[in-house]
């Protein structure tokens, strides 16, 4: 159209220029917004600042891009042109010459002839990646048995997360759920989060008549109060959506569902092992304590498990 009418051509040129001008305005506005709407203590200013800055920069870039495309589409010739590809193969002469050069290099260096040099070079090439492998080894140290143990020990009190206050058995009424950490976790100097990520426990009181307990686990609960690891055996999300009536524990990540009345066996979803149970009892003052650490590693499966 623009190549047929001068009027159209002029209009298109003006449009392209206007787009480029928009870009100028946008960039200038971004600079202006940066100073005019500074980020202060107030949270809302962050939003305003990023919004206006982003709008300015967007205009600045989009203006150039759209302008350039519009220019190409309206004002540049749109005749179709074809380009021939040239042949990739070298001429016979060039190929013969290349072979000559390689042969010459071989005879001059004596690569085929000098066995000793050649073999020692192979040796050197074979060995040079070794240091890299050793350095990779330093990515460790190996976790050792840290994946198999948590902070829970015989006699550790069960405490409320996050306050760290110990929990009495009488506090745990039927239908309530406590989010539990080992007492003393908050006082740890190092690796507090790592320890919490392994030791977090969910505490629930059920009607003792509702619980199906195997012989060996009879002594692991206290008067209907049971404690299970909160770390999903699928890939380790905190399983904490407890439904009071169905006694199901749901993992929010991939919907694995565990039955609290039946040793936290998996009733639905991708997890393949029940949640480990923490054996508990009460001390002389009536506080809930652990009988020992978990009897199996918590969390997702790993090698050698």
């Amino acid at each position, binding site marked *: *159209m623009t190549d047929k009418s001068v009027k159209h051509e002029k209009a298109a040129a003006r449009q392209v220029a206007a787009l480029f001008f928009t870009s100028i305005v946008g960039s200038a506005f971004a600079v202006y917004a940066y100073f005019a709407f500074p980020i202060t203590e107030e*949270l*809302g200013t*962050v*939003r305003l600042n*990023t*919004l206006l800055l982003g709008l300015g920069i967007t205009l600045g870039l989009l203006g150039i891009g759209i302008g350039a*495309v*519009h220019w190409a*589409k*309206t004002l540049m010739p*749109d005749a179709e042109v074809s380009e021939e590809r040239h042949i990739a193969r070298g001429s016979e002469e060039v190929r013969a010459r290349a072979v000559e050069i390689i042969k010459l290099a071989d005879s001059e260096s004596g690569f085929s002839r000098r066995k000793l040099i050649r073999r020692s070079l192979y040796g050197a090439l074979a060995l040079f990646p070794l240091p890299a492998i050793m350095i990779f080894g330093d990515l460790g140290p190996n976790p050792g048995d840290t994946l198999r143990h948590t902070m829970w020990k015989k006699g550790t009190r069960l405490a*409320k*997360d*996050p306050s760290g206050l110990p*929990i*009495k058995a*009488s*506090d*745990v*009424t*039927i*239908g*309530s*759920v*406590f*989010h539990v950490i080992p007492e003393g976790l908050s006082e740890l100097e190092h690796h507090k989060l790592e320890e919490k990520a392994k030791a977090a426990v969910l505490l*629930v009181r059920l009607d003792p008549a509702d619980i199906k307990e195997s012989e060996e686990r009879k002594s692991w609960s206290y008067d209907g109060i049971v404690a299970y690891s909160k770390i999903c055996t699928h890939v380790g999300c*905190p399983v*904490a*959506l*407890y*439904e*009071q*009536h*169905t006694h*199901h524990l*749901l993992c*929010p990540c991939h*919907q694995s*569902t565990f039955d609290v009345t039946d040793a936290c066996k998996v009733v*639905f979803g991708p997890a393949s092992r029940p949640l480990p149970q923490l054996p508990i009892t009460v001390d002389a003052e009536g506080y809930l304590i652990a009988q020992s650490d978990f009897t199996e590693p918590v969390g997702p499966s790993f090698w050698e498990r």
Partner: protein
Amino acid sequence: MKNKGSRRSPFAAVLVMAAGLALTGGGYAAATAAVEQVKPASAVASAAQVEEGRKLFLANCASCHGKAAEGSAAGPSLIGVGAASVDFQVGTGRMPGQASGPQLQAKKVQFTQEQIDSLAAYVASLAPGPAVPTEEMLAADGDATRGGELFRINCAMCHNAVGAGGALTEGKFAPSLTGVESKHIYEAMVTGPQNMPVFNDANLTPEDKKDIITYLKYVEENPSAGGYELANLGPVVEGLFAWVFVLGLIIAITIWLGAKSN
């Protein structure tokens, strides 16, 4: 120009998509904003009030919960559930229940606050149970930061980090807490309605509960610092938004690049 009649503008699809999303988003916002206002309950229960409550109970509740609130196959015993439970269940419209389903949902409240108070007084007279919280326990003037931490540990797994609600198993869900009265939030914590666990005062002290309410009210009243929240529903919604809009935009630009100029 020639092919204008034969083909829709490439932007039509994008426009339709944008309009659809805006409509559903607007509808959602309007639905969550519609929450009834109810006056706080008075704490004193007179004998006349209990009697009034008993009559209301016999007329409206006894068919499921039994003549003396002892429970039946159709509804649990209400002995010892306390006034807080009645105020929550009836005050949010969940009771009397009308439709069966995975769970009872909040709906239009069917009684005046006075009638609810009488019902609560009657149920509370049967056996001691959690009382309706006082105004002072509910004032949102606690520590929002601490409340936020407690909320994330105890509540966020079901109700979402800012109380937007979330799904549970088999059609059950944890409702959104946006726009829910402080009184009802408090009562839900002490009574554990339906599948929600109980958070008694040994677990979350009244002060903890106050902080949690303060946090929820703070989140409700303050804009998100991260821009538009997309209903605060997290990565699924955000991802969908990005896919639909950004992909749509890329397709639109590609069509424009390849189109002949007129």
